[in-house]
């Protein structure tokens, strides 16, 4: 056992279980059938009658530590040998054996109980069910068939299964963090949904934190909300201020808007970090708006400021035309 220290924990457990299984099988085969039946009755009576409650309690106490104990196989083996000796020496009075094996404080409780009381279908099944309930409470992901026990041939396999399940539940942990309940947390669907919702909200808050400048230093939800509110308010005030300025400029805006789409817009667009060129419909819009100024400027020709715009219109028109044609080719 010590020689295979480099194997993984699961493999080691499996090896140990196989060994235990073979040993117990030998024992059981060595037992005569009548003895076995008597033994069955005795143990079932004892277990169902008096010892059911303490076992369950101890199971509850120790199950959570089971994984930790499962790695210490030396202890498990020693414990097993110990109980084996007890079985060999005091086989006629089996009830005492079961009593002592349970009352002696044994580090890996489930294993011992499995190996000793395994022939009893009903007892084992109750305990297994307990264990299953507990594991379901723990991580509410594992589902096991309940009718797999109660047969000798499947005994070791079921033990293996339970261990593998606990292992896989350990492996699955990172996948289900947002749904899974840790120890001490409630597991009903409402609180699970609530937890998922809170996680979603905190994710969104992080996103907002990146969006709002100066929000990184603030900790706590209320402070962050405060910052967000301030930022939104300041942006809205900026919009109001800018629109006020535009309103004061509006009398002069009359002529400027005429030139705007032809002359100013390219330079104004170049202020953006990303290059944005209008879509097909917006090209149409430009054309439409270019027609209007032209007509307007024809009647406003007397204005000296309007001199520059027709030239630019003439300059810009071919570009737009070709682009439009290519757009048409592209779209139709």
């Amino acid at each position, binding site marked *: 056992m010590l020689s295979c220290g480099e194997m993984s924990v699961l493999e080691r457990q499996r090896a140990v279980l196989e060994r235990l299984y073979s040993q117990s099988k030998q024992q059981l085969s060595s037992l005569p059938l009548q003895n076995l039946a008597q033994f069955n009755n005795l143990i079932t009576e004892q277990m169902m009658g008096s010892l059911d409650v303490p076992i369950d309690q101890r199971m509850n106490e120790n199950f959570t530590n089971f994984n930790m104990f499962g790695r210490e196989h030396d202890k498990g083996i020693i414990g097993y040998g110990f109980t084996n000796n007890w079985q060999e020496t005091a086989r006629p009075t089996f009830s005492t054996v079961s009593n002592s094996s349970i009352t002696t404080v044994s580090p890996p409780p489930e294993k011992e109980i499995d190996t000793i009381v395994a022939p009893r279908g009903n007892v084992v099944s109750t305990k297994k069910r307990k264990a299953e309930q507990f594991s379901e409470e723990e991580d509410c992901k594992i589902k096991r068939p309940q009718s797999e026990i109660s047969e000798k041939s499947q005994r070791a396999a079921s033990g293996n299964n339970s261990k593998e399940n606990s292992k896989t539940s350990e492996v699955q942990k990172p996948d289900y963090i947002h749904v899974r309940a840790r120890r001490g947390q409630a597991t009903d669907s409402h609180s699970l949904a609530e937890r998922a919702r809170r996680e979603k909200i905190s994710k969104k808050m992080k996103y907002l934190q990146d*969006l709002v400048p100066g929000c990184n230093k603030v900790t706590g939800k209320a402070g962050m909300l405060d910052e*967000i509110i301030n930022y939104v308010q300041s*942006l809205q005030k900026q919009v109001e201020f*800018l629109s006020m300025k535009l309103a004061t400029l509006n009398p002069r805006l009359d002529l400027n808007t005429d030139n705007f789409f032809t002359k100013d817009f390219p330079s104004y667009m170049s202020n*953006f970090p990303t290059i944005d060129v209008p879509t097909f419909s*917006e090209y149409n819009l430009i054309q439409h708006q270019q027609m209007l100024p032209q007509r307007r400027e024809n009647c406003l020709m007397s204005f000296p400021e309007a001199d520059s715009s027709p030239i630019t219109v003439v300059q810009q028109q071919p570009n737009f035309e070709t682009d439009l044609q290519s757009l048409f080719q592209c779209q139709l």
Partner: protein
Amino acid sequence: MATTPRRYLRLSRRSIKTRFAYRFLRALKKLNKQKKPNSNRVKQYHRVKLAAYASMASAVGSKRAWSRALLWKIRNRGLTRTLVKKRVDEENPREETGFGCTNELRKLVPGGEVMNFYNLLDETADYIKCLSSQVQVMRNILDLFSS
């Protein structure tokens, strides 16, 4: 030759800024055309502000709750004007608790009164993005006009 317009199309459809700029400039032009002789500066300012908000909301489209609410508010502003005046009178100074903060945020984001908290945060993020781009575009326009 055929690839470049496609690239432009893809780029421009993505950008809110371009759409907002076109809409806003068109609205400003319209305002200039239908300018009444007796309109004072405050009214003009209100009109420009409304035009800015409306063009922003229509540039975003109806896929966002805040833009839908904003457009609805602007279209039915004759109905809501009295309600808004009433609400301004009752307004309290800001509370320091989280609940008060949330309520304040609900008031700031259009249509936020009826959302749950997650949607409110979602809409707030989008609203902040659009507002900041709006401010940028308007500042650019103002610079170009005033120069």
